[in-house]
């Protein structure tokens, strides 16, 4: 029998719930209490889509060191509130871990483990005694277990009370009874259980001014700040909450105070073909428009994306990736749409992709995408994934510069046309591959042109002449080169010691990668890293690869899609690029990255200590 775990501010706690039992707000409350005690924490929702009865889990990694990636391995403290998943939940506890459970109905000893400390609280019984209304019994049970945990983990009770008050702000009648229920749970635990246990929360000062929010909501807010007025979408997990968040942000920020009319239009389309069609139509007509979708939606949009590329129409597509192919694992995370987005459509196409690492960048890139789309007159993909999109994540506060203005790109106005400026819709006047466009309705007799997916000359006139086609396609490549200078640049982090080993990563892998580097350094494996933030790649990417003998490419898909992009777009020697691939649908962990790299790097851990 291992010793019960003893850890302060560094453990993983997991709640097993039944969907719709009101547990979500108790879980969020619990997470917030930890943050208010100044301790970084990373919550994750786990919600398989294929089990009857809809069990859900909520896992929080508490890490004073600030590691926000999924830790991997077992759970230190389990709260199994769903009898249906008890066995599975019990099995997931680390040796020496704890289980806090509802002990109202006695369970046979076979349901427990020798190496796990079981702490029973008769929650149902207490609720049934205290409340008569069945709805109340359920809701207060959730707060009660938060109270019991407050005692067991030694949480600051004032903080708990304060957050309950905040949670029910505006519904003041609910504050007192909730606080009372919390105390009921807490008092019972203090009296009957060995409080506190080995896992503890102790006030720290490691959160700073950071905020907690979901990537989808942040990206949607980015769209609001980016000036988007048209959103067309078709529901699909894990992207639906992005369009839904846009709806609620718009209700808050975009309703005309005097007329109550809306400065936005949101349409739930009949499918993804239609949503991207609407986005293209709106952008063609001078509004900022976007859609949010996931892999299956991107597949359906292919033909239209090719049209937008070739006819040079702005479009912003938020792709919240999930495990594919086909329906794949709809509620599991992956970075598996890189190739289908980068080269979406038949024919020769290349598209701009942005890779936000957290909600802060979801916001920043969400807003930036609209400037890029207008400036480059082409589709821009913002590549989120389920892990950042649908989980709350601690991140830097969102910032906005009030002097910033929308960059609408190269637009010819009626005044420009009247002044005699020559206009050719596909004329590369500046040598950057980007032509001017006019909005429909600009001028009574100048500047109108015909937009088409067929080949055309510089004045938008239909042609099948080979040279005109080739010139146009070459200009599009020139434009893609211009894109390299406009997209967010990669971020390089060098190890404390000089090394010839590098690692490239992007998107939601970020927190796990930071932790992995730290772990590896502790084992004497030193890495320089480059975090990609956009495709096409900046020249620094080739330079980084050239400067290292081996470069690990860490990604969350089976086929090494980013590695393929690096090979084909930068001509990097495949032998140099070593894939580190995590694709079981769970978020990548530092443990996985560091173990894989340590093994692959062929370095005996603790080499320095040995030599």
């Amino acid at each position: 029998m291992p010793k019960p775990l003893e850890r302060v501010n560094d453990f993983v706690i997991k709640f097993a719930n039944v969907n719709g039992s009101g547990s979500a707000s108790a879980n969020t409350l619990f997470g917030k209490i930890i943050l208010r005690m100044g301790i970084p924490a990373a919550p994750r929702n786990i919600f398989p889509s294929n089990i009857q009865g809809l069990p859900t889990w909520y896992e929080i990694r508490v890490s004073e060191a600030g590691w926000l990636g999924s830790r991997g391995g077992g759970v230190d403290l389990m709260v199994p509130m769903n009898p249906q998943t008890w066995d599975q939940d019990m099995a997931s506890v680390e040796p020496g871990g704890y289980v806090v459970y509802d002990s109202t109905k006695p369970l046979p000893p076979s349901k427990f483990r020798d190496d796990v400390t079981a702490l029973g609280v008769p929650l149902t019984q207490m609720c049934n005694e205290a409340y008569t209304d069945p709805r109340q019994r359920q809701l207060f049970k959730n707060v009660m277990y938060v109270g019991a945990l407050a005692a067991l983990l030694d949480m600051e009770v004032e903080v708990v009370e304060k957050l309950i008050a905040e949670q029910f702000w505006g519904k003041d009648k609910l504050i007192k009874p909730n606080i009372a229920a919390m105390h009921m749970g807490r008092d019972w635990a203090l009296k009957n259980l060995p409080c506190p246990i080995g896992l503890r929360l102790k006030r720290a000062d490691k959160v700073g001014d950071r905020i907690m929010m979901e990537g989808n909501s942040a990206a949607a807010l980015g769209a609001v700040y980016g000036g988007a007025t048209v959103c067309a979408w078709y529901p699909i997990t894990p992207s639906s909450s992005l369009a839904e968040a846009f709806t609620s942000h718009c209700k808050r920020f975009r309703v005309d105070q005097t007329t109550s009319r809306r400065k936005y239009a949101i349409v739930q389309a009949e499918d993804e073909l239609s949503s991207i069609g609407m986005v293209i139509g709106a952008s063609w007509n001078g509004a900022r428009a976007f859609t949010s979708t996931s892999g299956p939606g991107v597949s359906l949009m292919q033909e239209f994306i090719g049209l937008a590329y070739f006819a040079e129409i702005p479009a912003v597509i938020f792709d919240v990736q999930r495990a594919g192919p086909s329906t794949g694992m709809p509620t599991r995370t992956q970075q598996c749409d890189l190739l289908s987005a980068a080269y979406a459509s038949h024919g020769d196409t290349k598209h701009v992709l942005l890779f936000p690492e957290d909600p802060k960048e979801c916001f920043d890139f969400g807003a930036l995408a609209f400037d890029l789309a207008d400036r480059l007159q082409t589709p821009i993909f913002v590549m989120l994934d389920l892990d950042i999109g649908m989980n709350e994540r601690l991140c830097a506060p969102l910032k906005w510069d009030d002097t910033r203005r929308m960059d609408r790109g190269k637009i010819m106005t009626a005044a420009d046309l009247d002044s005699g400026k020559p206009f050719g819709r596909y004329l590369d006047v500046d040598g950057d591959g980007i032509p001017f466009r006019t909005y429909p309705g600009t001028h009574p007799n100048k500047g109108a042109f015909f937009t088409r997916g067929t080949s055309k000359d510089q004045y938008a006139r239909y042609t099948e002449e080979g040279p005109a086609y080739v010139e146009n396609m070459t200009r599009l490549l020139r434009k893609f080169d211009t894109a390299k200078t406009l997209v967010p640049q990669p971020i390089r982090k060098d190890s404390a010691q000089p090394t010839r080993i590098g690692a490239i990563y992007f998107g939601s892998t970020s927190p796990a990668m930071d932790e992995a580097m730290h772990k590896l350094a502790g084992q004497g494996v030193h890495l320089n890293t480059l975090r990609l933030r956009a495709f096409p790649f900046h020249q620094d990417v080739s330079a980084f690869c050239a400067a290292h003998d081996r470069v690990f490419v860490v990604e969350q898909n089976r086929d090494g899609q980013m590695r393929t992009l690096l090979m084909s777009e930068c001509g990097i020697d495949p032998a140099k690029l070593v894939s580190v691939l995590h694709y079981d649908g769970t978020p990548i962990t530092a443990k996985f990255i560091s173990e894989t790299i340590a093994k692959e790097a062929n370095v005996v851990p603790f080499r320095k200590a040995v030599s």
Partner: protein
Amino acid sequence: MSYLPKPKFRHPGLPKNKLGYTRRDYEGTVSTLCAGCGHDSISAAIIQACYELDLEPHRLAKLSGIGCSSKTPTYFLGQSHGFNSVHGRMPSVLTGANLANRDLIYLGVSGDGDSASIGLGQFAHAIRRGVDMVYVVENNGVYGLTKGQFSATADAGSKSKWGADNNDSPIDMVALALQLGATYVARSFSGDKQQLVPLIKGALGHRGAAFIDCISPCVAFNNHPGSTKSFDYVREHNEAVNALDYMPVRSEITADYPEGAHEQVTQHDGSVLNLYKLAADYDVHDRIAAMTYLQKKNAEGEIATGLLYLDPSPKDLHAHLQTVEAPLNHLTDADLIPGAAALEKFNAARR
């Protein structure tokens, strides 16, 4: 085939409309369709309608899918922005364009393949959303551009040019449009300019989803005996329920009409439609009766044409979405961006 500009020569004596434009100012480049193609007559009718309406060409945007019919927007309104999108998807592009700027007039041109086969879903959904547009299907019962395969509007029992039978039931676009809530529904024939021009004018003045199913024979692939979309067949079986006369504003009726045979309807834009009943029992405002009447005529092998349904004051998609009066594409940074202070509050609520 490359772009063919029309000669710039202008006859000095050409009549001008109120804006000082001649009919030629509403033309586009030279048509590349087959000589005698019904679609060219529809283009001519669109030109005529816009000219007579004194429409500023740049206040209209023309959109289409793919097909011979969808090519036609190049051949009219050369001063208007145009968009030849992808096969069957014009309705979504038009919907998006309309959302961006509610002040322009949107003319969607499509074919029966484009709208009844590959694009049936988009057609249906644009209609049921009440997008403010004129949606014209140039209906020839075949895929012209891909050389004469049956389309989904081909009647069961009709024969292809090569003698093959069509056994599938036809899709009746008018019946669908009525069922899906279009607020201006008409059917016409490319060979009947008299009927078609006023129908297009009325549709352009309509502030909701206006749908015109225009039978438009394909001389290359569907104008033979045994086809129900040939010039001869349509002329023979055409039964107009009414005749329409478009007036920009309400004015005195001078001619004498028998009681109940005439009606004036004012549309939202102030224009007036003078309707002369040809079928005595046909009520243009009764959607359900219209559906029944059309089904009956259809069963009798007759093609009912004219203005088939009208709701003169419809609610459009913008009304449903409660968007601001100003076109969304005119809104500025100040209108759209909440700013740093709002963001600070947003942050504070997430700590």
